[in-house]
């Protein structure tokens, strides 16, 4: 049952990502859009994304694109997205839990248009 719900999620992943191509059998090179506004966000996002099986993470504050390299046999895009959500950040797949978002520093409140303005 647990894997059943992942199927539609995985399909979204497949559909939505403009660059999705398996590099080799063991490494997947892809991107995930993660919302954030500042350098502090970057550190949190990258730390959160580095779960087991992820070998490279690089998030860009302007494009909001998180470039990822991971081993699909060990982890999945949904799992990475989930880990990022749990750290308080919305990804293009799902939203972060409210409590996790609220625990972020005020300057990282990327959902607030006022905060976004201040960072532009």
């Amino acid at each position, binding site marked *: *049952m*647990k894997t*059943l*719900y992942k199927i*539609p*999620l995985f399909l*979204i992943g497949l559909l*939505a990502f403009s660059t999705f191509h398996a590099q080799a059998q063991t490494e997947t090179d892809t991107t995930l*859009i993660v*919302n954030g506004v500042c350098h502090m966000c970057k550190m949190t996002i990258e730390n959160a994304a580095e779960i087991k099986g992820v070998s490279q993470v690089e998030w860009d504050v302007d494009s*909001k694109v998180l470039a990822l390299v991971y081993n699909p046999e060990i982890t999945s895009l949904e799992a990475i997205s989930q880990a990022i959500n749990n750290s308080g950040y*919305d*990804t*293009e*797949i*799902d*939203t*972060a*839990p*409210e409590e996790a978002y609220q625990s972020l520093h005020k300057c990282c409140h*990327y*959902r*607030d*248009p*006022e905060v*976004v*303005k*201040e960072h*532009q």
Partner: protein
Amino acid sequence: MKILRLLLITAGCPLLAWSQITGTVNGLDNGKTFPLAGANVFWDGTETGTTTDQDGKYELPKVNGHNTLTVSFVGYQTQSKIVISRKGTMDFTLKPGVELEGAEVVGKVDATKVDVTKANLSYKIDDKELRKAACCNLSESFETNASVDVSFTDAVTGTRQIEMLGLAGKYALIQRENIPFARGLNANTGLTYIPGPFVESIQLTKGLSSVLNGYESITGQINVEFYKPETAPKLYVNAFANQGSRAELNVLSALPVNDRLSTAVLAHASNIGIPQDVNNDGFADMPTGSQLNFMNRWHFENNGDGWEGQIGISAIQSRKVSGQIDYIESDAPADSLWGYESEGRRVELFGKTGYIFENHPFRSFGIIYDLSYQDHNGRFGRRFHYGEQQSAYLNTIFQDIIGTTAHEYRTGFSFQIDRVTDRLSTQNLEEPLYNMERTEAVPGAYFEYAFEPSPRFTLVAGIRSDYNSYFEELYVTPRLNVRYSVSDNTTFRLGGGRGQRTANVMIENLNLLASSRIMNFQALAILPEVAWNTGASIVQDVNIGNRKMSFTVDAFYTWFDNKVVADMDLDPNTAYLISSRGSRSLSLLAQVDYEIVKNLDIRLAYKYLDAQDQFLGGLRQSYLIPRHRAFVNLAYQTAKQWKFDATLNWFGAKRLPITESSPQQFQRESESPGFFTVNSQVNKAFKNGLEVFVGVDNLLNFRQDDPIINADNPYAPYFDTNFTWGPIFGRNIYVGLYYTLPDKKE
């Protein structure tokens, strides 16, 4: 749990769950949250939206390319969140806020703040700012606002008049919750009829405002929001006393009746018991008397079906006595004594009803109405003034978008009818000296279009057309406001248009009667006052470290096609009330706001005013408007809820009426000297809801010594009180408290 929920959603209807944002919208009131049914939820710039159900829940598909999810609900501040996810939960908690005008999104609440999103230059002053200057009524609420100045009209009546853009307060549209308030007979008394503690916030708009509110605003718009049943505390008490023997009590109480209905009572009583005469001219420095205000208002909301409304009644009674001390203190004053008496009453019924269309979050309809009766009996020595006004007002507002939120419009019709009596008579004559009785019915219609292609640019173009039965003419009022934000730190604004009002000649110039001048109405025409106003402003923010320094510079120019001018120059014993063309006013204001160190805010402002009236002898400076004006305000707040506030004011020279032809001893300089005043206040708030304050007005004890000419012989020629350019009463110490009943924890 989260996984389980996801599982249920995806298993239940997998197709929807792929791209669905769900969540709950709550309202926040007195620290408690509760679900809001019928709130609008939509993606900015799209027509995709929904309303929340009975439990405040919503579901909305994600729209590609649109990432701002906005929630609005009548009576609450609109809130937006940036959402990039295709699915997930997004909850909203709305704070109480704006009334009935779905489109008016008032920004984040700093004490006073320029609202950057509006097309015209507007400021919001909230109750935090209002508490900085605790006494007493609305006319004192602009202490720390550079755009508005308050001064006495004369040395006897105690009437305070506001000045905006170099012009009297009557040229601004003063509204209570978007209902025109200080107009007609109330133009003179309007501000003193609004007790400060009733006020929740004030929105100040410089220059011409929306055609929605009518054609009467010329210099700007002051909209006062009272505490409402939905927002007022259960119990709120304010008490105040000052050295000038003024005592005041305000009580507010809000009660929810049931889920749909709530009510609030607002009451005010004030009294000045003992006449003061610090300058020993035999005249009281300010009137003694009392004022009572009572208001009961109701708010109803039919959960979920889009209807909302409010209705209320208000009653005001005011009594003032002034003039010679002997007159005030005597029960049966001798006929030789000069006295001033004023008795005013006002009753009012007002209401609003609004409807938001289901599935069309931008479409709404509102009706605003008001019925009022007001009268005024005045005595100025041996002259008597009687004023009466019956008014009915109706305004309708329909608003919607055209395709996307980039194109919005508001339209509606309005109807105003006024029956006004404005009569001046004397003891000796049976025939009145001046008698104006008119009925003025004004049906009108307006259309306003707002174009906002990006958050950086707004254009608001409005036009209205009104038929006036008194002048038997159709008037067209066009207005335009444009805003462009070059960056987040720089905003330019430009605006202009036409404004018009009907003068009530004697009512608006009662101060002239506090003299022995003969009133002359020969050069008065039956014409409306018409003016054109144009203005531009720049708001520039500069980041210094992590603090923001904010610069505001604005310039406004007003030109009168027709204005009623009181000419006191030609003859020191006559006041000519004339209709003239070509009066003008230029106003320049520069202001800096900066937080010097944490919790220490400074505001510096300088204002240049070149106000000129077309007198009988040609164009000259307007009376009592300083050419230069500056102030510095310092506000400091500690973590322990101590607040310190101090303002240093500087007023430049003011033009006085010409007295060259008067006998030597009754002559005055052509201009007043410049002077400084300092006001200061300390507040301390306690955890149990109590806040106490002590303050001093005019700390330096600066006084104008001789505000009255020929004060010894008030029934002889040359007696005149219209030379009041500075404080008459010196240093004035006051104390007071606010008490808010803390909410019971549930």
